[in-house]
């Protein structure tokens, strides 16, 4: 069979995309096993030395802080996003359009700008002491909220209204309808929003650059600061670690919360 030229071109394009996406990551991973203190590729001799250096308090502290911050951000974002998404779906209220715009606004704003704005606001408001965890948390909720509200709204929209009406007609109070029908059926959206918030927070460096404090610095900012003194294979190790955490999380929660899996299972039996 002769393959058309366009097919081969597509194949080449896809291969290039993967090469550019995965290539640097692979190179970074390999570099972290260098014996030398320079980042040679291919590595000159193998060693776990740099990985050992990555597991010193200087780095693990920031790493754990990042994890804590991401977890808090994910929870806070969901706590704020769920009621918003529910309200946007079910109610007409004064100022709805404005609140919607404000919620979804940061989506189009570079997080760098949000970071600068937050820093200035806290300084002007005399809340300089919030810089560190509280400010990072606020900033990350602002950044993540649009995604959270969107994903929850999408899963809410897929719930047949009649299922909720049926529940009400069967004696379920509005609270019971929410608990028994709406939330269980929206859980994949809520879960996806939560994971997304966790990863966005964990990955963020733009906003964190402005509102971190010396004692409360996420790993991303720590790496940035260290980079000013040059690259070391430790950074390569740290980068790989920071990449694995969100990946593992997606895989894990994909199973636990069942993003998509829920639907697949249903259709599989149909």
């Amino acid at each position: 069979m002769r393959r058309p030229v366009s097919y081969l071109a597509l194949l080449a394009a896809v291969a290039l995309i993967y090469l550019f996406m995965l290539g640097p990551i692979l190179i970074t991973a390999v570099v972290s096993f260098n014996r030398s203190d320079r980042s040679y590729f291919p590595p000159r001799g193998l060693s776990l030395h740099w990985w050992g250096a990555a597991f010193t308090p200087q780095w693990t502290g920031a790493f754990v802080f990042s994890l804590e911050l991401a977890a808090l951000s994910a929870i806070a974002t969901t706590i704020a996003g769920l009621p918003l998404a529910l309200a946007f779906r079910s109610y007409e209220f004064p100022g709805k359009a404005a609140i919607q715009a404000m919620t979804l606004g940061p989506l189009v704003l570079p997080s760098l700008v949000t970071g600068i704005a937050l820093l200035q606001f806290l300084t002007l408001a005399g809340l300089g002491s919030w810089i560190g965890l509280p400010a990072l948390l606020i900033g990350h909720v602002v950044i993540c909220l649009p995604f959270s509200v969107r994903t929850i709204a999408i899963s809410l929209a897929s719930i047949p209204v009649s299922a909720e009406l049926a529940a009400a007609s069967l004696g379920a109070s509005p609270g019971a309808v929410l608990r028994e029908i709406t939330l269980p059926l929206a859980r994949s959206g809520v879960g996806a929003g939560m994971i997304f918030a966790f990863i966005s927070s964990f990955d963020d460096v733009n906003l964190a650059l402005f509102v971190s404090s010396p004692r409360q610095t996420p790993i991303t900012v720590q790496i940035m600061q260290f980079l000013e003194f040059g690259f070391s294979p430790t950074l390569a190790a740290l980068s790989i670690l920071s990449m694995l955490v969100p990946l593992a999380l997606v895989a894990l929660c994909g199973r636990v919360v069942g993003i998509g899996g829920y639907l697949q299972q249903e259709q599989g039996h149909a």
Partner: protein
Amino acid sequence: MPEGRMSEAALELRGLEKRFGAQTAVAAIDLQVQQGEFVTLLGPSGCGKTTTLNMIAGFITPDAGSIRLGGRAVENLPPHRRDLGIVFQDYALFPHRNAAENVAFGLRMRKLAKTEIAARVADALRMVRLDGLDKRRPLQLSGGQRQRVALARALVIRPALLLLDEPLSNLDLKLREEMRSEISTLQRRLGIATVFVTHDQDEALTMSDRIAVMRQGRIEQIGTARDIYERPASVFVATFIGSTNLVRAKPAGPPSEGLVPLATAAGPAILRLDRPLAAGADLLLAIRPERLQLTPTGTAPDGSTAWPVRIEGVTYLGGRLEIALRLADGSPATAHAMNLGAMAWQPGHVADAWFRPDDAWPILDGGASDGAAP
């Protein structure tokens, strides 16, 4: 429910109204459903059936009017306190729960004991012949099975009133007829007052104690299937249910012994009516095609109305023949004849079309009936 209420109507609507913006979806509906009665709301899509049902259920608030369930005013009760069983057009099963859990839901909300819930769920599933499928999720059930789960879920709470919104329209023809009789049987056995919504006249005619024919947010006529079919109150009712011949007519003299003479576009006619017609009224005479019979000219029975007609065409429908006619004034009409094999009507033949005094019904031109309707 206290004894005293059993004598009350299961449902009473008075002056029920709902507008959406400038559009009136339901306009001043009055309706009573007695205990154990099966009432159908029949009408074309968009005539306000679902809106009416949603107001009864409490899903939307009426702009005016009152709703009583078993004598109790419920306008201000939220849906979860109205004690109704509802079957939705799309069944509205809970996709994340299996059949038994779906059926158990209303009982759980009523905080019944686990053992009683289990017993009643098993009963309900057996009642709709779904025993053995209790662990299946909705998506693992066929359309008919989902329908049965929805029915069991609505009935297991022993509601005071059952509401069904086009429950059969998503099923294929054979299943639809099966479920039709199943719902009817179940309803009679349980003696539960039921409001059934459909746009399908066959469903309405076969299932209902009474039919309310709706049009543009109003009830155009309410009565038994026979009332609706044989004594339609308006042209809309006459043409929406079955097909009918409509012939212009006017009263042609005073009634004698219950027989009223009419002058029609097709010739003189005689009707049996229990009430007089207003003199000079513009009427449309409705005659069902199966009541219009053909016979050689001059051989119609005494006391019947016989009109000269010309046969335009004969359509073979198997069990019967559909015969296209032209009346004296040139207007078209249709007669149905049993296919008895020997019938030899051919296009071009001239014959008499005849009907008995009870076989036609006068409708006031412009809508309402002549006042002879019950």
